[in-house]
C-alpha cells in the first residue's frame, strides 16, 4: 500500500462523503430556506420554535421521515416502486462530482463535465416516470405523463442554449468555462454582449428551463397539489417521499451551480479581485433564493400553456440565439 | 336573454292550461311580492307541471328551487317550483299536489336541466317519484339510502 494510493483513497472517500453530505445538507436547509422565505413573503414568521430561529426544523423533519412507516400500497409494482426514490436521488448527487466549486475544489475535473450533467439529468426524468407508473395510482400516472412531456419540451431549449454557450466557450469542461470568465463581472458570460447580444435572454431561458426541469413551481406538474393530489409522490410515504424531496432540492442545487458556472463566472469575484469558494456559494444560493422567490410569487401554469411556452417561445428564441451566436462567431 | 314576458301574459298562458283540463284544479293568482315573495302563484294539476315549465322556459325564466312538502293530514304531498326571471326579477311559484300514497309526477328536467338535482333531492327527502327523470338516485343521502327523512312519519 503506497502512500499515494492511501491519499487517493482517502481523497476519494472524503469527496464521496462530502458530496453526499453537501447534498443532504442542502436538501435539508433549502427546505428551511424555502419555508422561511415563503413566510417572509407572506408576512409571517415561518419555523421559529424548533431550535433557534427554527434551525433544527429540517433535522426534526428528516428524523421524523426516517422513522415513519414505509407503506407499500396493495397494487404497486414493488421492485420499481422501491427503486424509484433511490434511483432518483443518485444521478443529481453524481452530477455534483464534476462541479468545480472553486479553482481547486472539484472532485473530478471531467472534460465532458457539462455533457455529463445533462446525461445524468436525463436519467431522473426516466426514473420519476417509472416511479409514477409503478405507483399504480391514476394521479401518479397522469403526473408521470406530464413529466415526460414537460421535461422533453424543456430539455430542448435548455440544450440549445447550452450549445450556444459551448460554441462561444469552445469547451465542455466546466473548469475551463469558468476560467474564461475571470476578471470582473463584465467578463461573465451573462454580460458578454460582444460574443452574443442575446446573452441575458439566454440566461433567462436557462433559468426558466431550470425551473421546469427541476419541476419547480410555476412548472410543478409533478406535484400539482390542487389537481393531482401529490402527483408522482402520491403513494410514497416516509423516507421514500423524503428521497424525492431531497432529489428535487439537489436538482435545484445542481441547476443553480451550473447557472453560476455557465453565466455568472463561477468562483470569480464580480470585481476581478480575489476569487474564492464563497463567491461561488453566494451566487449559487442567490439563484436558489430566486427559485424559491419565483415559486411563491406565481400561480401554477396550465399544463398546455407550459408546453406552449416552451414550443412557441423558448425554443424559437433559443434557436435564434444559437444562430446569432454562430453568426457572431463567424463574423468576429 | 329575452326581456320578461309581463306577468299578465304569463297569467293568461297558465289560465289556458287550466281551461284545457276538464276538472279545473288550476288556480292562478297574482300575489303581493312583499307579503309572499312571489309575483304569480300558480297551482296546476300534477301532470301539467311539464307544460308550466315549458311556458316559463319560453318566457326565459330561471329555475330557482323545487321543494316538497308532506301534508300528512291531507294525505297529500305538495311540490313547489320557484322560478325567477333573471332580467326583470319577477317570480313565479308553481305548485302541484300529488296523493301521498302514490307520489308521482312528471319530471321537468328535460326542460330545465337544473331541475335534475332539485328533483333528486326532493326524491331523497320525500320519496316523490319524478317520471322521466334520468337517474333518480340518492343525491344527499348515502347511495344505498331507502328512507325519506323529511316525510312527517319518518322515524329512523
Amino acid at each position, binding site marked *: 500500500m503506497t502512500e499515494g494510493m492511501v491519499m487517493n483513497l482517502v481523497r476519494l472517500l472524503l469527496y464521496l462523503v462530502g458530496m453526499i453530505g453537501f447534498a443532504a445538507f442542502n436538501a435539508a436547509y433549502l427546505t428551511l430556506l424555502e419555508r422561511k422565505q*415563503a413566510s417572509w*413573503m*407572506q*408576512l*409571517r414568521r415561518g419555523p421559529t420554535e424548533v431550535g433557534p430561529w427554527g434551525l433544527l426544523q429540517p433535522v426534526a423533519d428528516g428524523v421524523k421521515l426516517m422513522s415513519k412507516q414505509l407503506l407499500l400500497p396493495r397494487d404497486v409494482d414493488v421492485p420499481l416502486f422501491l427503486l424509484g426514490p433511490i434511483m432518483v436521488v443518485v444521478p443529481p448527487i453524481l452530477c455534483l462530482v464534476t462541479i468545480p466549486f472553486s479553482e481547486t475544489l472539484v472532485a473530478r475535473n471531467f472534460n465532458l463535465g457539462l455533457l455529463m450533467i445533462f446525461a445524468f439529468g436525463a436519467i431522473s426524468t426516466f426514473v420519476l416516470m417509472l416511479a409514477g407508473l409503478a405507483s399504480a395510482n*391514476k*394521479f401518479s400516472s397522469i403526473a408521470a405523463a406530464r413529466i415526460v412531456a414537460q421535461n422533453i419540451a424543456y430539455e430542448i431549449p435548455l440544450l440549445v442554449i447550452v450549445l450556444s454557450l459551448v460554441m462561444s466557450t469552445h469547451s465542455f469542461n466546466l473548469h475551463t468555462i469558468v476560467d474564461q470568465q475571470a476578471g470582473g463581472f463584465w467578463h461573465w458570460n451573462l454580460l458578454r454582449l460582444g460574443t452574443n447580444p442575446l446573452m441575458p435572454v439566454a440566461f433567462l431561458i436557462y433559468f426558466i428551463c431550470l425551473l421546469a426541469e427541476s419541476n419547480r413551481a*410555476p412548472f*410543478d406538474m409533478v406535484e*400539482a*397539489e*390542487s*389537481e393531482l*393530489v401529490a402527483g408522482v409522490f402520491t403513494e410514497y410515504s416516509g423516507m421514500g417521499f423524503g428521497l424525492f424531496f431531497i432529489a428535487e432540492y439537489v436538482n435545484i442545487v445542481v441547476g443553480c451551480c451550473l447557472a453560476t458556472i455557465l453565466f455568472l463566472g463561477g468562483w470569480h469575484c464580480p470585481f476581478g479581485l480575489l476569487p474564492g469558494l464563497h463567491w461561488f456559494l453566494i451566487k449559487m444560493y442567490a439563484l436558489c433564493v430566486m427559485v424559491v422567490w419565483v415559486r*411563491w*410569487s*406565481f*400561480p*401554477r*401554469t*396550465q*399544463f*398546455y*400553456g407550459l408546453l406552449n411556452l416552451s414550443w412557441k417561445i423558448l425554443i424559437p428564441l433559443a434557436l435564434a440565439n444559437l444562430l446569432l451566436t454562430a453568426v457572431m462567431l463567424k463574423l468576429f | *336573454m329575452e326581456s320578461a314576458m309581463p306577468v299578465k301574459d304569463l297569467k293568461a298562458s297558465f289560465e289556458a292550461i287550466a281551461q284545457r283540463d276538464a276538472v279545473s284544479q288550476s288556480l292562478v293568482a297574482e300575489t303581493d*311580492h312583499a*307579503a*309572499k*315573495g*312571489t309575483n304569480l302563484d300558480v297551482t296546476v294539476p300534477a301532470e301539467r307541471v311539464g307544460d308550466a315549465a315549458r311556458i316559463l322556459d319560453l318566457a*326565459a*325564466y*330561471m*329555475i*330557482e*328551487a323545487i*321543494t316538497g*312538502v*308532506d301534508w300528512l293530514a291531507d294525505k297529500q304531498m305538495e311540490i*313547489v317550483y*320557484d322560478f*325567477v326571471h*333573471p*332580467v326583470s*326579477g319577477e*317570480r313565479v*311559484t308553481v305548485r302541484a299536489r300529488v296523493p301521498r300514497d302514490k307520489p308521482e309526477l312528471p319530471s321537468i328536467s328535460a326542460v*330545465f*336541466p*337544473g331541475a*335534475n*338535482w*332539485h328533483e333528486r*333531492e326532493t326524491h331523497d*327527502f320525500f320519496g316523490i317519484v319524478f317520471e322521466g327523470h334520468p337517474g333518480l338516485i340518492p*343525491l*344527499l*343521502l348515502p347511495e344505498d339510502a331507502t328512507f325519506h*327523512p*323529511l316525510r312527517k312519519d319518518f322515524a329512523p
Partner: protein
Amino acid sequence: MSSDAQAIHHESFVLNVGPQHPATHGVLRIKLTMDGEYIVDAEPVIGYGHRMHEKMGENRSYAKFLPNTGRMDYVAALFNGHGYVGAVERLAGLVVPERAEYIRVITCELNRIASHLLWVGAFLVDLGGFTPLLYCFDDREHILDLIESVTGSRLTFCYFRFGGVCNDVDDNFIVGARDFVASMRSRMPMYDAFVSKNIIFRKRCEGIGILSADDCRKYGATGPVIRGSGVAYDVRKMEPYSVYSQLDFNVPVYTECDCMARYRVRIDEIVESLRIVEQALGKLPAGPVMADKVPRALKPPKGDCYFNVESARGSFGVRAFSDGSENAYRLKLRSPCFSNLSLFQECSRGMLLTDALALLGSLDLVIPDIDR
C-alpha cells in the same frame, strides 16, 4: 382501414376526485371519466356533508333554528341568517327597525367582502398560487375582528334575530369599519397588480370555463356566476330587500362568461360592497335594534312565503311553511352553491382536467352549503 375499427371509442378511465381532494374544498367528490387529460364526463357526488338543516328546521322552534343558519354557508354566514330571519319576518309580519336593517346591511356586506377575499385566495390556491391566499386572509382578519367585536364569533355568526339584531354596534365598530374601507381600498391596486394582471393567472382564466347565460338560466346559477355571463341578476336590485333600495351601488356584469369574468365580478363586488358599507355607515340612523313586540315563542300564521337574499354566492332563498305552531312545518333552504355546482357536469365536458378544476374553483363552492 375498416370502418368498424374506427367506430370503437377511445378508451377512457375513471378518476375519482375526492371526497378528500385539495381541489374540492371540502367533501365534494367528482367522478371524472377521462380521455387522457380531457374530461368526458364529470359527475359530482355530493351529500358527504349533509347535516340535516331542513330536518332541524322542522323539529325545533323558529328561534332555535337560528344557529343553524350560520353553518350552511359558513363563509358568508350572515346572509343565511338574513335570509332566514327575513322569511320568518315576512311570514309573521314583523317590522324591523331601520337601524337594525342598516346594521344587517353593513355586517352582511363586510361578510361579503370577507367571503370574496377567501374565494380569491382559495381560487388562487386551486391555480397553484399560495401567497395571494395569505394576503387575502390578512385583509379578511380585519373584517373578522370587526364582526367579532359585534357578534362575538368569527365565522358561524348567530347575530340576526327576528325583528332585528341581537347586539347594537358601537362607535368603535363604526370607526373600525370606516378605517377598514379606507385600507381595503388602498389594497385593491395590489391585488390588481399581483393577481389580476399576472400573465399566468390570465392565461389560466381567460377563455377558460365558458358558461353561457342560457346555461346559467337553465341550471339556476346565480350570483357572480350568472353576472360573469352577462346577466345583471342581483336580488338586491331585482327585489330590493332590507334597505338596499336606499343605497347606491352598481351590479358588476361581465359578458366574457369565463373564469376571468367571474373573478372580475367578485373583485368589483368587493369595491361595490365597500361603497355600500361606507354609505350605510353614513346613513346609519339612531334608534332601537330590535322590534318591540316580538313574542318569545313566535307562532306565525298559517301559510307560506319565499324570501331570498343576494348572498356572496348567489341567491339564497328560504321558503317557509307555517302551520301556526311554534315550529316551521317545512323549511326549504335554497342554496346558491347547489345550483351553481349542478351545471358543472354539463359544462365541464370536453375540458382539460386543469381547466375544469379552474372552473370548479371559479364557482365558489361551499360544500356543506350544497349538502345542507
